[in-house]
């Protein structure tokens, strides 16, 4: 799920961010998924245990809306059509609804891995 990302690098430098944000917005729009009524998080491949679990943890409303968007997009794709302008995803609706859950699950499994690999040292004395 974690593709290499330059987000951190860019957001740390305000001047670079100022340049990149309009470019990123243009790119997201040009990618075309918004014209099918999808959100960026709908494009995350779900064939992994992490994403499957994250999908299970979505609130019922979010999960329902996601399925609706996907089916509508399939329909559009099959009939070689774009959605009418008013039904396309607006940039402000294109927020990360799934990524926080994925990040949480990844943090959980990272912590589990860290704890498994831990080397335990016996303490000499309590902190007083």
């Amino acid at each position, binding site marked *: 799920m974690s593709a290499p990302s330059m987000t951190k690098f860019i957001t740390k430098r305000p001047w670079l961010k100022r340049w990149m944000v309009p470019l990123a917005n243009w790119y997201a729009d040009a990618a075309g998924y918004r014209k099918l009524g999808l959100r960026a998080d709908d494009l995350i491949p779900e064939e992994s245990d992490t994403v499957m679990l994250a999908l299970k943890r979505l609130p019922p409303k979010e999960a329902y809306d996601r399925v609706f968007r996907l089916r509508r997009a399939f329909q559009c794709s099959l009939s070689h059509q774009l959605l009418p302008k008013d039904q396309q995803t607006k940039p402000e609706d294109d927020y990360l609804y799934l990524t926080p859950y994925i990040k949480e699950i990844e943090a959980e499994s990272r912590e589990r891995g860290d*704890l498994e690999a831990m080397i335990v040292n016996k303490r000499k004395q309590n902190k007083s």
Partner: protein
Amino acid sequence: MVPRASFARAARRTLRSQCSHTPNNRRTLASAKSAGYSYETGEVNGIKFASRDIPGPTTQLALVARAGTRFQLFPGFAEGLEKFAFKSTHKRSSLRITREAELLGAELFAYHSRENLVIGAKFLREDLPYFTELLGEVVSKTRFTRHELHEEVIRVIKLNQKSILANTDQMALNSAHSVAFHRGLGTALHPTSSVPITQYLHEQELATFSQAAYAKPNFAIVANGASHDELERWIGEFYSDSPATPPSDFPAIETKPSKYYGGEERIAHDGGNNMIIAFPGSGAYTGGHYKPEIAVLSSLLGGQSYIKWSPGFSLLARACKAQTQAHVSTRNLSYSDAGLLTISMEGKASHIREASQAVVEILKAISGGDIEKDDIQKAIAKAKFRTLEAGQNIGTGLELTGAGLVQSGKPSNLDGIAEAIEGVTEDAVKKAAKSLLEGKATVSTVGDLFVLPFAEEIGLHV
């Protein structure tokens, strides 16, 4: 027994500060005097706590909150809160809590009774600060996440419901309570599978309920095998985040006094037979409804044997000798403002039928005065021993003390109980038996209803 005088504590503190080059958390075995039988109590930042400095290398620490099934706002909340103990908090995940506790060699436990929710830990004495902090974190910083509720808590509750379906003993006891007290104390201790809980259990409401349940006046901390001063110090440090008052926009935890109703309930069951005959019993010593004669009557009726190879002196054990396949036992279940004297019979249906008739005959005999003085003496000794033992036992003692602290501000006074039981006269026992028979009984029957008798048939008034 003798509360340690405050000057002794001050003296110890001075002594400690003089020898400040030694780490003050080094394990020291308590002196014989401080290893008292009863708990030393205190209050810090509005949190009541009690400790008993038993000499020994381990400590048992528990937090007793007044949030058992009696006080829950919606079905399953006590159970939900119990299962959410030691789940992930804002500071660390549940996995980390588990692993850290394992590394320290500790045991964590959480359970609830009808009145109390108990979460606690058993650990080595020098780890007291860690576990005091952990309990404080559980109380004020649990995250109550949605996914933990659905993936772990509700799943476990549902499995629990299934196990209870097969348990006729629990079923009969729950039924007896609900018949005797209706709401409040009558709420089932664990919801059965026919109780709709998923429509009530939501993580946000559970979180708000936890703020009410874990508000400072609503819980007490009890420790066994920890020094009083040290416990005071760590509680002062780690419990500043607990709310001082329950949230105002949420219904307050109900404290309506319990009322005894009585009646009969019969439940058909294929997996066993159980019959409970119950009467209003004695409340806890710290409440105002303590009746020592009920404790004596309970051990006089008895039924269960405590001495090997002997049926025991108790009247029911002797009367039900022929019913070898019925197990009879009498208990007084005491709560803060009420009690339930239960005579429970389980085993073969036909034997239970005969035993239940014997129970009523014996109660009539006691109230009629047909009873030997010797038996009363034995019953008094037994009742005294059982009460004192329950108080001295660490597990039950923790809950008793904590509940006493929360409900009336003082831990149960075991010496007082022993004195009250010793003062019970033959007359008082007879009178108690008579009043039980005159009032309404509670009869709960689970099992083969074709054979098991109705209350009317064995001569009880419901």
